[in-house]
């Protein structure tokens, strides 16, 4: 946890009465639900062993919207986003309570198949992580895994389409058999996005997708996010407030495992309601 964040929290403990950090029934400022949501979460608690990482978070992901999640390090935004496609299942000590629904289906119910869920909710990670295979195989892997193509030419079309939508086709079309790990960092990340969209998910989760990239590569990814939001719902965790402001329609501010405030991005950044949000936005800590 960030040292300044703790100090700031302490100062708040002293100064304000509606103390979100010690109040177990803290209610998020702003409207957490949206009409016709792609994904809804209600009262989510996450524990790592004895330590609680997420406190009673409710937040909906709207259709074809870009929802950004911001907050200081260790505030639980990555943990939260990883709950949405059950990536936290891989961590033995992780326990998740609450209600997370994709199109009204409880994703933690016994009937939900994790493989199917992850095909519907794709993910792009912080560090570009292409498979040590060719560019083509990277994109084709998920497609053939789920049997989404009937033959080679159909697969070729899907791969080409995904690479085009990820804005990578022009750069790699002549070297599809080259290793994906040989690309530059930004290209690798776009390859990972192509890999995610090749299986046509409904929602794409992005966990700090630009934190390992230079500004030019970042700009390309942001442009891409904008385009992708025409077809997909996107959840993006980011450390950069400018990025959140540029790409998202809605912003959620997390602090020490609690969802402090959520609202339209322009309002959050210009006129935040909560002191903690304001403190973070204005750069008093972060």
């Amino acid at each position: 946890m960030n040292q300044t964040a703790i100090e700031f929290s302490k100062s708040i403990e002293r100064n304000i009465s509606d103390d979100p950090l010690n109040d177990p029934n803290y209610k998020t400022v702003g409207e957490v639900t949206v009409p016709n949501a792609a994904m809804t979460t209600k009262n989510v608690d996450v524990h790592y062993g004895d330590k609680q990482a997420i406190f009673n978070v409710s937040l909906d992901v709207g259709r074809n919207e870009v929802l950004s999640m911001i907050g200081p390090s260790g505030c639980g935004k990555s943990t939260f986003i990883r709950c949405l496609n059950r990536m936290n299942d891989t961590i033995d000590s992780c326990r998740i309570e609450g209600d997370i629904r994709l199109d009204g289906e409880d994703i933690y119910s016994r009937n939900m198949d994790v493989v199917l869920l992850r095909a519907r909710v794709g993910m792009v990670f912080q560090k570009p992580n292409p498979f040590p295979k060719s560019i083509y195989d990277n994109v084709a892997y998920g497609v053939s895994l789920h049997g989404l193509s009937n033959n080679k030419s159909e697969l070729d079309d899907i791969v080409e389409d995904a690479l085009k939508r990820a804005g990578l086709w022009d750069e790699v079309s002549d070297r599809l058999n080259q290793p994906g790990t040989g690309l530059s960092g930004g290209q690798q990340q776009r390859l990972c996005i192509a890999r995610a969209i090749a299986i046509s998910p409904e929602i794409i989760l992005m966990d700090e997708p630009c934190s390992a990239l230079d500004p030019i590569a970042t700009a390309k990814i942001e442009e891409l996010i904008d385009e992708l939001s025409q077809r997909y719902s996107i959840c993006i965790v980011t450390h950069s407030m400018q990025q959140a402001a540029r790409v998202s329609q809605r912003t959620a501010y997390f602090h020490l495992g609690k969802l402090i405030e959520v609202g339209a991005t322009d309002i959050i950044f210009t006129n935040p309601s909560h002191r903690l949000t304001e403190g973070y936005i204005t750069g008093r800590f972060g």
Partner: protein
Amino acid sequence: MNQVALIQRGLARRYRLEKRFKTYGLTAIVCSVAFLVFLLGTTFLNGYTALLQTYIAVDITILDSDFDGDPSEDLLSKGDYSGIIKRSLREAFPEATKRKEKSELYRLISSGAQYDLREKVVDNPELVGQTATFWLLADDEVDVYMKGRIDPTIPEKKRRLKDRSIAWIEQLRNQGRIKRNFNILFFTNGDSREPEQAGILGAVVGSVFTILVTMLLAFPIGVAAAIYLQEFARKNRFTDLIEVNINNLAAVPSIIFGLLGLAIFLNFFHMPRSIPLVGGMVLALMTLPTIIISSRAALGAVPPSIREAALGVGASPVQTVLHHVLPLAMPGMLTGTIIGLAQALGETAPLLVIGMVAFIVDIPSSPMDPGTALPVQIYLWADSPERAFVERTSAAIMTLLLFLIAINGLIVLLRKKFERRW
């Protein structure tokens, strides 16, 4: 300025320290290389003569009467070839008249020569009734003398080859009736009490079967166990206990595994003694911890981001492991397997306990036939009193080393194949 002076004052000492450590390292390497050269050098110098074998030319007349006057095919193989050789030797050296002298004369030729002669006569029955020169396998003492390993100046009482025999050998040498050929028997025969007839093939075949069984058992079981423990098992007290025990097993002396094999495979399951199958199973038990530990390390070294990437596109955990993690971990796993198999190949103690130390002349034709293994053969020969077994011991060591290099080479090739080029 003051700080610069302070740093400079210490610099000389730091460089000295660095130099000293470099010297230590270099000395260590020079020492180990010297030991290795010494070891390989003495082995080679002792062993290369085993590649040559002495033969003695004897004029042999084969008579009809040797076969009761009826040299039919059936009787040819029943003839007294030992007697024929002895008669021919008596004719060549008529001066040997006393019983003791004669028996000394007979000892110049290996007891195995009669079988060689029989084979030649059976193959070519026209030899009966003729006199021909045959090159017969010399006795091991003659061979050792010819190789200059017996000093004729030491008192006669202290050597097995007497002065009279030496005189006969020198006489033969002067007549050009003694020669050294490539010792093909060493590579085609099984073990024998007679050094000149003893070969390595039985032990090589036994080792091949043993290692095959070990590899076929230990590699899949070890890799499967490692994958389960590393990728699927929940981390709790029970898996911790298993992990600690696997680590402990890796340090258990090999003879304990031999005793375990004796108790379980032989006494409980009543499997036959001395067979490579049981040897391989025991060595597999011994090798398993090594393979499991190194395979787990190799799996652990695969970056978690690859697992996340695969899970993220909807691969099931097993698909994630089989498609992505396992191929990346394979080179490391094979390295562990090399170490384990090399260890198993050189292992003697557990094989002694399950009876692979038995004296077996036949070459095993399956893992179910009684056999021995190279290290055990080395142990057996090193333990034999005959002088000629010394060079054979060294030659067997060289064979074992070659075998080891071959197996390592094979696995290095496999590893190269699995290694990702990027």
